[in-house]
């Protein structure tokens, strides 16, 4: 009797790790903007792996993503603002070693407005947007706006500037654009995930800004393109550095990254030099430790291996999911840089990244 029980217990114990090894759960968190894409990828990847690998991604904002990545409570983070030198140094100091920023998609931020009788397609340039957000242009009837839109009858409404009240990667992209196109903005405000706004009213989250814009005739705010499109909010076109009027589209956003990129992909592609690129766009990065074993959230080699396989899938086959969901694909040169970074990833000194890539034929 006793031996039977013992045998049963041993069998159960032996089966337990096997059962866990078969099913792997990966955990990531961060930016809100790419969340629909990442969760769709997670859905698809679960089917691809026959239900074996579940990727749990929670959108807690770029700041939260960086924070939890640094706290080592998630296996990967997501952010619309890349890790700066200070953050990289802090991570290295905390024992995490090098952290990689791996672009997964591109985000585009569009000026959204509520003007009775005016549809999507109002044209803006950098200087006009900066002047409006500085509070120097106060009415839609301003000659500077009229000059850009000779065929549009602009109502003489006052402009209500709407911005994000929370820290946000969207704000980072928007203000980085204004900083690049306007010396006054660069000097007085600068760029960050949240800034000291010279004028306007705040809304919490993409939905907060959208809500104020939709309810306020004369309002001008900024939103992710996917958000504006899904909620039928009118949005503007922007004249880029090369002088071309660019309609914010997925292709134009991808083209914004068609510039010379640093090996670590830490670059703001706002006000891009690319002639057909949309100027208010930026990467959404996945954050990953070079030494996966340094991350407390990753406990086994299996988890590390499956995580690498998932990331490899998101930047290759998984990219096919992007455009149907109104997300931009990462361009070819970025894929090459991503593969280079993944190749360096290690598990307890073992070249796990290189192995996973070799297995997949990269």
């Amino acid at each position, binding site marked *: 009797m006793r031996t039977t029980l013992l045998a049963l217990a041993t069998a159960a114990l032996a089966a337990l790790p096997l059962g866990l090894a078969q099913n792997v759960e990966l955990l990531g968190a961060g930016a809100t903007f790419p969340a629909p894409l990442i969760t*769709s990828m997670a859905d698809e990847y679960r089917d691809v792996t026959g239900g074996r690998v579940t990727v749990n991604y929670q959108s807690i904002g770029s700041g939260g993503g960086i924070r939890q990545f640094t706290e080592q*409570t998630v296996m990967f983070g997501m952010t619309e603002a890349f890790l700066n030198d200070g953050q990289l140094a802090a991570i290295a100091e905390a024992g995490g070693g090098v952290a990689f920023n791996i672009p997964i998609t591109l985000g585009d931020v569009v000026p959204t407005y509520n003007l009775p009788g005016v549809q999507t397609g109002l044209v803006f340039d950098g200087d006009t947007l900066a002047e409006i957000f500085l509070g120097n242009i106060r009415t839609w009837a301003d000659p500077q706006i009229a000059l850009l839109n000779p065929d549009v009858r602009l109502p003489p409404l006052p402009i209500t500037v709407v911005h994000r009240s929370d820290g946000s990667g969207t704000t980072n992209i928007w203000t980085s654009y204004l900083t690049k196109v306007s010396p006054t903005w660069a000097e007085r405000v600068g760029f960050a995930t949240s800034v000291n706004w010279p004028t306007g009213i705040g809304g919490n989250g993409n939905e907060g800004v959208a809500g104020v814009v939709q309810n306020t005739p004369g309002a001008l705010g900024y939103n992710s393109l*996917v958000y504006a499109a899904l909620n039928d909010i009118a949005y503007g076109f922007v004249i880029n550095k090369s002088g071309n009027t660019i309609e914010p589209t997925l292709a134009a956003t991808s083209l914004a990254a068609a510039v010379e990129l640093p090996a670590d992909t830490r670059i703001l592609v706002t006000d891009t030099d690319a002639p057909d690129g949309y100027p208010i766009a930026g990467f959404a990065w996945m954050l990953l430790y070079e030494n996966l074993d340094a991350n407390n959230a990753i*406990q086994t080699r299996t988890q590390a291996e499956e995580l690498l396989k998932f990331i490899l899938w998101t930047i290759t086959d998984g990219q096919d999911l992007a455009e149907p969901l109104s997300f931009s694909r990462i361009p070819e040169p970025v894929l090459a840089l991503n593969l280079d970074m993944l190749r360096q990833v290690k598990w307890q000194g073992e070249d796990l990244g290189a192995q996973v890539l070799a297995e997949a034929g990269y």
Partner: protein
Amino acid sequence: MAVTTTPTAPRRTRLAEVTPANLRRRYLRDRVMIGLLVLATLVVLIPLLVIVWYVISNGIQAVLEPTFWTSDLGSPARALSGRETGLGHTVLGTLVVDGLALLIAVPIGIGAGIMLSEYPDHPLTPALRILNDTLNGMPAILKGLLAFALIVKPMGTFSGLSGGVALAFVMLPIVARATEGVLRIIPWSIREAGLALGLPRWRVVLNTVLPAARVGVVTGVLIAFARAAGEAAPLLFTAFGNNFFSSAPLRYLTGPVDTLPARLYSLAISPYREWHAMGWGAGVVLLGFVIVTFVVSRCATRQRHQADM
């Protein structure tokens, strides 16, 4: 004679004829006050009814969908393309986290309540009272932070376990206070009867005082439960959330799980109409959860009245 009889409707006119102006004024004031009280009650009740009606009318459709209970959420693409999506994992996760919180908070909370009520002379009791009140007044998000530091950081991952502990911190002071309150109203004679039989003090508390107060204690526990079930803040960085059913039953404790209040928020701020509808559905389930709890606690209190008679 006519003045002192109880004022029924036909008598009231006569009453007015014979009573001095002073008394009439007092009756008038009485009626005005009652009117104000009725008004105040309505002011409290109407928003409640409006909330219940609004949530149910918006969310009932989502809840009636069978996949709402059997599927997990996945990505918004599922909802947009009409594939199976639901909050089954969220309901399950909520039950696990709330159940765990009850398991932790009830024994400790009742113990603390007994200490406060039955051992007022113990040197630790004043400190316990202050700590309990402080814990009760502490913002819920700080309790989440505490659970994050105590459990999430050492474990290296978010978990249902840490969520349960965070909610237990919310329940604990409420259970302790409620227990103390009901034990106090148990007549002293019951304790004396036990002591007269030669029972030790702890046995008197456990075998005579506590059973007499059982229904009141249960009510306190249910109120604490209802309060904690609606909390999202302590769960943000503990239970964390999950878009899927966990891969193994044990993972509901050791891995991140979804909970209704937190999921409701994330659905509500999403840009998808389909998810907004599911968010309302989550609201209906949460409301149902809490209302059922309160109805059960009401019934329990009514039973006590019958038992007293």
